[in-house]
């Protein structure tokens, strides 16, 4: 309670003036708030419960990951990227490793590619499970959170058996993987696939046809396809608006071109569609997992990469389909052992910009639902 919030810079248009000429209420939501998913601060301009405009204030979790990258060698920077989107650490590592591989012009051996795809898809399911639990919790359903976290545990166990870490895995290295799969890895993944599908039905039973869930999510936070593209929104949020854009199909990396899967899309671009798209994506991930485990080849897991990585002078941009959307890395090399500049294009940060478009004219409760449906992780937004 030190000083009043300066709202002059907000500059939100206030068309909905009443004849009583009442003033708008400015509500500060966060950074300590149960449902801003970490330390997001949203300033809401309200007319009663109606949202007239929002302003996101970020940076409470800024750790300067990009700057750290300039002072580490290429290999040393690899574990840092795990700390950005910490619920999908494997995807972050994959994106970074692939970008440096592109810079070095090497390619991971086929076996490494399959291991990478398996782990990344497991990670996608885990990330979506965290999203499902917290999103449902925001809307007031307590129970799915516990179900989702219980089943996510099985994925974390596979990660732990593979590389020893559960959350910030550092599973991949530049040029492939450093760890060979453990004994029974394929069986574990297969077992997980058969274990998980009934559980997914269980989540759906609680939510998909639940009357309150449907009324709370349908026609809430609608994002039109053209708005999505204008705002640069990617991932399930984009696909729920009906745009069939998935980097795994659009510019296949790793062994995704060998995989047979579909891109689930929505029709209306509302919160309910985003929910359905993510649930369908989990099913598709299981499909990919099954194919990948069956087709996993034998062979080396590491490409020929020099001990000291000194990429040629140049710059490269590479992006992958992370669970939350397009995760891109832009690396400038000056020929030394350390990158000259690392720039990350995090999906959460870009998707968060759609918040204002989505909640204008809705109610306060919808802001919470929309923050949940955007599936942001503040570690990635602030970096």
């Amino acid at each position, binding site marked *: *309670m030190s000083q009043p919030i300066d709202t002059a810079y907000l500059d939100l248009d206030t068309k909905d003036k009443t004849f009583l000429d009442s003033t708008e209420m400015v509500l500060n939501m966060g950074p300590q708030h149960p449902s801003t998913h970490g330390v997001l601060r949203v300033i809401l301009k309200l007319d009663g419960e109606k949202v007239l405009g929002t302003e996101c204030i970020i940076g409470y979790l800024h750790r300067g990951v990009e700057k750290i990258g300039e002072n580490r060698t290429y290999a040393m920077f690899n574990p840092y990227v795990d700390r950005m989107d910490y619920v999908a650490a494997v995807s972050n590592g994959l994106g970074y490793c692939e970008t440096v591989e592109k810079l070095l012009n090497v390619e991971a051996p086929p076996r490494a590619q399959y291991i990478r795809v398996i782990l990344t898809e497991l990670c996608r399911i885990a990330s979506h499970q965290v999203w499902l639990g917290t999103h449902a919790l925001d809307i007031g359903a307590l129970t799915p959170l516990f179900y989702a976290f219980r089943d996510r545990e099985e994925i974390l166990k596979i990660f732990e058996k593979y590389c020893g870490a559960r959350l910030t895995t550092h599973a991949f290295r530049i040029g492939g993987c450093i760890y060979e799969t453990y004994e029974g890895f394929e069986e574990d993944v297969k077992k997980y696939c058969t274990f998980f599908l009934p559980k997914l039905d269980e989540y759906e039973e609680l939510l998909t046809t639940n009357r*309150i869930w449907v009324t709370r999510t349908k026609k809430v936070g609608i994002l039109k396809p053209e708005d999505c593209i204008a705002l640069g929104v990617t991932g399930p949020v984009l696909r729920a608006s009906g745009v069939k854009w998935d980097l795994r199909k659009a510019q296949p990396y790793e062994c995704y071109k060998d995989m047979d899967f579909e891109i689930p899309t929505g029709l209306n671009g509302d919160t309910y569609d985003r929910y359905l798209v993510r649930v369908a994506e989990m099913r598709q991930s299981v499909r990919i997992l099954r194919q990948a485990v069956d087709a996993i080849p034998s062979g080396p897991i590491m490409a020929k990469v020099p001990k000291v990585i000194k990429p040629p002078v140049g710059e490269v941009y590479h992006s992958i389909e992370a669970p939350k959307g397009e995760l891109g890395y832009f690396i400038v090399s000056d020929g030394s052992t350390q990158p000259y500049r690392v720039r990350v294009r995090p999906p959460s940060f870009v998707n968060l910009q759609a918040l204002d478009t989505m909640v204008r004219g809705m109610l306060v*409760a919808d802001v919470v639902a929309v923050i949940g449906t955007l599936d942001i992780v503040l570690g990635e937004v602030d970096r």
Partner: protein
Amino acid sequence: MLESIRNYLSSGVTPGEAGSQFWATIYIIAITLGVSLAVISMNWLERKILAHMQIRLGPMRVGPHGLMQPFADALKLLIKEDIIPANADKLVFWSAPVVVTMTAFTTFLVVPFGRTHAVTDMNIGVLFMLGISSLGVLGIIMAGWSSNSHYPLMGSLRSSAQMVSYEVAMGLAIVCAVLMTSLRSGTGTLSMIGIVEAQNAQGTWFIFKFFPLGLIAFVVFAIAMIAETNRAPFDLPEAESELVAGFHTEYSGFRWSLFFLAEYSAMLAVSSIAVTLWLGGWLRPFPNWLSGPAWDLAFSLIPGISFLVMAAGCLLGTIRMPKIVQMRAQAIGLGVFAALLALVGLVLLLPGVRERVQDIFWFVAKVACFMYLYIWYRGTFPRYRFDQLMKVGWKVLLPIGLGVLIATALVGMRQELWASIVGVLR
């Protein structure tokens, strides 16, 4: 003096009717303690049941199976720092929890736990309960406004709008039950005891009366009462994911625990209304069909036996406890709890006691079912949005309530109606 105190025991009416101030005081104290105990056990039960629904264990550390957790929490709340925000309106801030708690407890004055087990039998019992329980919203508004903060203000505004709109549907549903009481006798009653006796006289709980009309009215009431007590899925005033803690965001320590106490006793109060109006109050199952001394005896043994079964369960738990030194205190605690339950069970089996107490048992058992439903809803449903809540209240429950009221009146008066139609035609 002593004579009058003793005379009351054989009178068979409530202390209020008998005019016995001594017994009225005893009853008030007993009900206050009983409700507080019920709130404490609800606290534990809610956490346990919700936890088991969510594949967790719930409290396990403080006492055997966390039995002492509510007491530990209460102690913690009592010794917490007492904070009044600098910008708060101190007097209103101070009095809001008192108002809320007072209203929540006052409603229990007319709750009939048995034919003789109510403080008094008012001839406007239902009206009194409704009136007093709707005063609780005043305390919530006071709390929200005096906190001088945005979240509590929004919470209290939501709460007042919600309570006002759901009380209408609730009132209509209650009028249905009151109409039903007037069927055999010709004159209806608002007295809580009278309503239960009417159900006894008509040989049916009102939930089954004019099937499905009684059931519909009951469902309307059951939905409205959840909204009235601000519980999931209608817990918007304290929606934690939106408004942090709603109207009591700025409260802490003992004042906060008063809100907690009030919320749970309000839940008990509205459940008592529901049980009294639709589920036959203190009446045991099938009092007319399974009548006779043998059945009376059998049913009067059930309270004691159920306590003994619970005691046996606890004893089993004691035996199954891991036999290690660290768990010894817990095992002993659970054993003592089992012994306590067994003792209560045995006392309830005594001939003098069991006739007097079985009414209370059946009433409490029915209320407990409602309490379980409250927890179940909380584990299952997401939360409504404010406008949707209003829509459900005004556009769904209110028309249904009105319709069922008119239908009940028409069905109840069908003979007179028929006679008058025939008369007109002639």
